């Protein structure tokens, strides 16, 4: 009798505390997975799989930012899937040089960057970024994680987080300028 009671109540409590701590991050998890995988079905599968993994390892989670913790699992699960699918995303060459992004080509008044930015164009531009740039951008701008959190999550030195972020933004600005010029 005692054992039956334990085995029934323990998973229930574990599930309840897990859901209370981790389920509120569902939107973040999905948004991140969706931007990484660029596919709705894959993103949903990865989110579900990530939650199951997170639940499995929940006992190993001792405080800290639960959202970063979950997003780390989402990242690993997403990359596993991309590897399985031999995604071309992963073979995109990454230029991690810390050179300063050249802003001169868009820093003229005609680029309209200081006016309202068209959100459809912006979203399209983000999706066209290589995955390494895309993900630091999402984590910083949408999930508002710190450089340190991003570094831990993506296993990158702080300097690389900083330079990738700068380059991601510069590329976005160039892309946007190009698209806006095309439309004009």
């Amino acid at each position, binding site marked *: 009798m005692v054992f039956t009671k334990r085995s029934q109540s323990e998973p229930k409590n574990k599930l309840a505390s897990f*859901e209370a701590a981790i389920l509120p991050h569902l939107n973040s998890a999905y948004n991140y997975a969706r931007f990484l995988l660029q596919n709705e079905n894959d993103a949903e599968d990865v989110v579900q799989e990530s939650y199951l993994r997170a639940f499995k390892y929940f006992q190993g989670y001792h405080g800290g930012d639960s959202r970063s913790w979950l997003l780390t699992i989402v990242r690993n699960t997403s990359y596993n899937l991309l590897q399985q699918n031999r995604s071309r995303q992963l073979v995109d060459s990454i230029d991690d040089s810390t050179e300063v992004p050249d802003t001169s080509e868009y820093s003229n008044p005609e680029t309209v960057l200081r006016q309202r930015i068209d959100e459809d164009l912006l979203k399209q531009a983000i999706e066209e970024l290589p995955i390494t740039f895309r993900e630091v951008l999402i984590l910083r701008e*949408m999930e508002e994680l710190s450089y340190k959190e991003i570094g831990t999550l993506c296993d990158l030195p702080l300097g690389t987080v900083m330079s990738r972020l700068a380059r991601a933004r510069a590329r976005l600005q160039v892309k946007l300028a190009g698209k806006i010029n095309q439309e004009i």
Partner: protein
Amino acid sequence: MKCEEFQSQIHAYSDGELDLTKSLELEQHLPECAVCSRAYADLKTLRKALRSDSLRFEPNANLEARVKSALRREAHGGGTSLGWRWLIPLFSAAVLLIIFSGFLLTRSSGDDLVAREIVSSHVRSLMTPDHLIDVPSEDPHTVKPWFDGKLDFSPPVRDFTAQGFALIGGRLDYIANRPVAALIYERRKHQINVFIWPAASGDTRAAAQVQQGYNVIHWTKSGMTYWAISDLNLAELQQLQGELDK
């Protein structure tokens, strides 16, 4: 410091990740430099646009329910495989079958157990004449009162000599965890034990079986359970059952 370096710092500055000294230097430089201040303004515009909720991918409404049910399956010992859920109806059917057959088994083994006790008691009663009869009498008016005070019920005692079943006495016995009345009838030197005790349930039709070569008939009538056993043939034993039921 060159503008190039300042412009590499405006990202960290904008992110609140630039150290204090460098931040102060940058803040001094920006109002003095049109190129750097424009780059900074462009960056702020871009970042403001990136904060817009409409850029986010919102999950479908059913994703949360899907994740929750997957977690429940996981929490209750299920695997992560989606195929698992198809086993549920099969599993339920198997459980029902086990419960049902268990019910049948205990039911039949319950009756079976009593039948074996009946046989044992019958055989024991035949081993020595002393064991057979506590109160030797063909008179029901002697046998019936004899049970008074020995049992918590009054068994129906009748003689069927005219029908070929002579009452030869009564005995106290212990069957199915309770004291019961045993009536002994005789037909052509064949002894017949009829065990009687109050029934737990309503009337049941007579069920005949053979136990260790003996014919056994079991039935319930008017609140009494009857077990009749003998080496007599079944047809004649059923005849006695008919008389007892009248």
